[in-house]
């Protein structure tokens, strides 16, 4: 159906989407870059001035920035480790014959559909609160001091909350990949004398590796933007203990009203995300050929 007339009408049909996304990309992005080169504070309007890369210098030398980078790294890696390993184990478990598999699946998938503010607040209050939370009650029942999760281990607690939310995603993807594995490959391996562990390491794992890579890349993109969970639990604190790059930019832009500095931070965040995106796009591109 590739006649000339079709080509022209096809271009027409794609253009709204392309133009809108182009606008969505270029305009705000350009503005961010522009602001990042200015001294622009919302509390002192009318005093904007071009200051070149000063914002970047300031941002990058801010100790809060270094902390934020480490925290971001810790958050992303922590969640990735938990969800990928946990997801693999869960996928293996769910792949086994059992009764009521459908229901177990529903139970395991559920956390992903809970909105981030709800899950964060539920964990913060009903579970982690050192006075009234469930963990506190359990600790007291064993005669132990309740642990104030969000004060004493803020980042770790947030990692836990976010992992709980994303575990279903990893599980679902890995389970889908596992179930797409040709059973005959496993049967052939069994005929060749491979035991359960060998079959796992030499056949299942390589097959899952590809899906795991996709999970890692996609989750990383989304994890870099974790926001709500931090906002409603620790506000990035105590101090900057649980501030990630995203949160730092938010704080600077909308709480300290330093639009220039926040914009610089935004540009840095974009650069980091792009690095991951390049790898992800390559994987997707390979699949689009198929």
């Amino acid at each position: 159906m590739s006649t000339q007339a079709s080509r022209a009408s096809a271009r027409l049909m794609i253009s709204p989407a392309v133009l809108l996304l182009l606008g969505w990309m270029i305009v705000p992005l350009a503005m961010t870059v522009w602001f990042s080169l200015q001294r622009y504070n919302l509390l002192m309007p009318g005093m904007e001035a071009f200051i070149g890369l000063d914002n970047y210098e300031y941002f990058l030398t801010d100790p809060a920035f270094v902390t934020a980078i480490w925290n971001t790294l810790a958050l992303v890696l922590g969640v990735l480790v938990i969800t990928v390993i946990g997801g693999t184990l869960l996928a293996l478990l769910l792949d086994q014959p059992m009764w009521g598999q459908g229901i177990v699946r529903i139970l395991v998938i559920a956390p992903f559909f809970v909105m981030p503010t709800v899950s964060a607040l539920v964990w913060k209050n009903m579970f982690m609160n050192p006075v009234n939370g469930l963990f506190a009650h359990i600790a007291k029942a064993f005669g132990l001091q309740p642990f104030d999760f969000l004060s004493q281990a803020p980042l770790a607690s947030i990692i836990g909350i976010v992992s709980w939310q994303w575990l279903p995603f990893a599980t679902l993807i890995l389970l889908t990949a596992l179930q797409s594995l040709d059973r005959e490959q496993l049967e052939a391996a069994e005929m060749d004398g491979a035991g359960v562990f060998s079959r796992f390491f030499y056949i299942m794992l390589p097959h899952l590796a590809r899906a795991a890579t996709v999970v890692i890349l996609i989750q990383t993109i989304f994890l870099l933007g974790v926001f709500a969970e931090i906002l409603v639990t620790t506000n990035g604190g105590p101090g900057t203990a649980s501030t990630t790059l995203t949160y730092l930019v938010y704080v600077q832009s909308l709480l300290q009203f330093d639009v220039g500095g926040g914009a610089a931070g935004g540009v840095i965040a974009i650069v980091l995300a792009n690095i991951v995106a390049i790898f992800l796009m390559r994987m997707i591109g390979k699949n689009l050929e198929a």
Partner: protein
Amino acid sequence: MSRAVTPRRKAITTVLAWIVGFLIFFPILWTIVLSFKSEGDAISAPLNVLTSTWTMESYEAVQERSNYFLHFWNSVVISFGSTIAALVIAIPAAWAMAFVPGKRTKDVLMWMLSTKMMPAVGVLVPIYLLFRDMGLLDTRTGLVIVLTLMNLPIVVWMLYTYFKEIPSEILEAARMDGATLRSEILYVLTPMAVPGIASTLLLNVILAWNEAFWTLNLTAAKAAPLTAFIASYSSPEGLFYAKLSAASTLAIAPILILGWFSQKQLVRGLTFGAVK
């Protein structure tokens, strides 16, 4: 493998799986339980919680004290509004890319996907300022615009994959049968595409409902959807566990139900085809 699995092994697996599933689901379950308790009971020890009286007072309190219904309605308008807007823009685009592929189609598609990977925080500043200057802050319209654009790549992508699955031979057969372009779209393409469009709609409503960056930063009292409303419980006054539970249960229930039906769509929509 259709060899017999011993009932014993199946039983062990079942027990293990149910325990794991229960543990993972527990926070949600606990929230639902607490929503039916009074505030005093909600903060007491777990055993006490389970044995105390069940009541609807927390649900009533949520409705009275805060305009829960307004926020619920905001969520509905924003989720469905942005989804429908995205569909209107995306269906022609995906149609064109699936059925009249050109040399650059793949590149365009990939570029669209890449826009989704841009971190929202990178454009927080300009969007916030633009909205402020255009009077779009704290409006449902503003949020619909943002969410439409944020999710457009995924909607286009999902529709593209569904359209590609329609065998081109069937459309050729329609042409051989004398169908004009309009007839082809009306009688053959659309009926076959409806399931795919429905799936895309489902997933996108879920994603928009749960979106918690723009909804938190661009709204205040008037246009706040449920995400922002719940966030207001982060610095509450007095006892609030039961009310939080009631509000949360109401907020997540619709999406939990929709989500149970959309697992396949989730895999398709969020892995961009890299996993089948």
